[in-house]
């Protein structure tokens, strides 16, 4: 059956313009499919919020959640910088700053909800997993990457820091020296390196991350759910204070003219390599 976009078929199934979800065999699968590379803007946020609302019901019948991308380019290229730039142009400085804070508060709410979900959550990633896309993956309990996955926090190139909870979550999961390397150099790194530093739990062949995530999710279904929930609460606290601090620092930095210049340069670039430093 052909399903129109934006249709909530039931709480168990949704097909939107940016993402879709369905639940099968106790596993919720959320797939991203917004061209060109799942950039996270207002549309994606709306549909993520829709998903977060549906999660209350979905998790009653689920033990696992898988996030993945249907697009060849990768998991997610991060925040929609074009939308961010264009919106900031059409607004005054104060209004733009308020809009950014509102967006961040809303996306943090969604990501915190997924982070703390009483499910085992898995990001099945491939290709570009940059900025906000990297932050989306970091929300999950496990990251399974195909060997072509590439991770990066390029925000410093724009005069910003990651704003979707990336720093507190990286600090939660990795050593501070690694965090400094990734953040301060802004370099991208591959799945093998990501596994070496403890970020990625499994590296699989090209095109195999979703299959591996499904196999892992099926295994999770064999365990007592209440034990898994108790274990997750114990080992994966939400770094709430740092997350709020990150929003504050991001908003402070965003108001600087250097950021507008950086965004302008990225958006208007005819360089064949805007994703390279």
């Amino acid at each position, binding site marked *: 059956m052909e399903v129109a976009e934006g249709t909530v078929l039931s709480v168990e199934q949704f097909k939107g313009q940016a993402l879709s979800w369905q639940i099968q065999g106790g596993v919720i699968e959320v797939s991203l499919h917004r061209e060109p*590379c799942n950039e996270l803007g207002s549309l994606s946020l709306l549909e993520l919020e829709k998903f977060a609302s549906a999660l209350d019901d979905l998790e009653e019948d689920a033990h696992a959640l898988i996030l993945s991308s249907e697009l060849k*380019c*990768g998991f997610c*290229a991060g925040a929609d910088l074009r939308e961010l730039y264009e919106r900031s142009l059409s607004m005054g400085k104060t209004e733009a700053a308020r809009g950014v804070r509102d967006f961040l508060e809303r996306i943090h709410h969604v990501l915190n909800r997924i982070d703390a979900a009483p499910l085992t959550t898995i990001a099945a990633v491939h*290709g*570009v997993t940059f900025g906000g896309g990297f932050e989306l993956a970091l929300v999950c309990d496990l990251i399974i990457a195909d*060997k*072509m*996955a*590439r991770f*990066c926090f390029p925000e410093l190139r724009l005069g910003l820091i990651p704003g979707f909870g990336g720093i507190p979550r990286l600090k939660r999961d990795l050593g501070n020296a690694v965090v400094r390397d990734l953040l301060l*150099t*802004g*370099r*991208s*790194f*591959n799945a*093998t*390196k990501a596994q070496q530093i403890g970020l990625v739990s499994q590296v699989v062949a090209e095109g195999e991350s979703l299959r591996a995530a499904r196999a892992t999710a099926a295994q999770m279904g064999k365990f007592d759910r209440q034990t898994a929930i108790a274990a997750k609460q114990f080992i994966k606290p939400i770094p709430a204070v740092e997350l709020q601090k990150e929003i504050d620092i991001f908003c402070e930095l965003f108001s600087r003219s250097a950021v507008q210049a950086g965004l302008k340069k990225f958006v208007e670039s005819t*360089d*064949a*390599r*805007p*994703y*390279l*430093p």
Partner: protein
Amino acid sequence: MQTAEQTLEEILTLAAAHFKVQREKLSPDADFFKALGIDSLQTLDLLTRLENHFHVELPDYELQGVTDFRTLAGKIQARL
């Protein structure tokens, strides 16, 4: 350890095969963006394939200003 020429040849062969360009049409000094017809995301794909093939880590900032296969091979050779 393999020679710089061997590294260069492996890069050309890998790039030609993956981006479906005849190997003979790729010269060591060609601009790989033009020769392969690739954009920035595909360049990252190429970088990842090269890192996996040679088992090296090549920070992408080292590619700043690099446009030809020979210079790219030199960057990789320095990390073998």
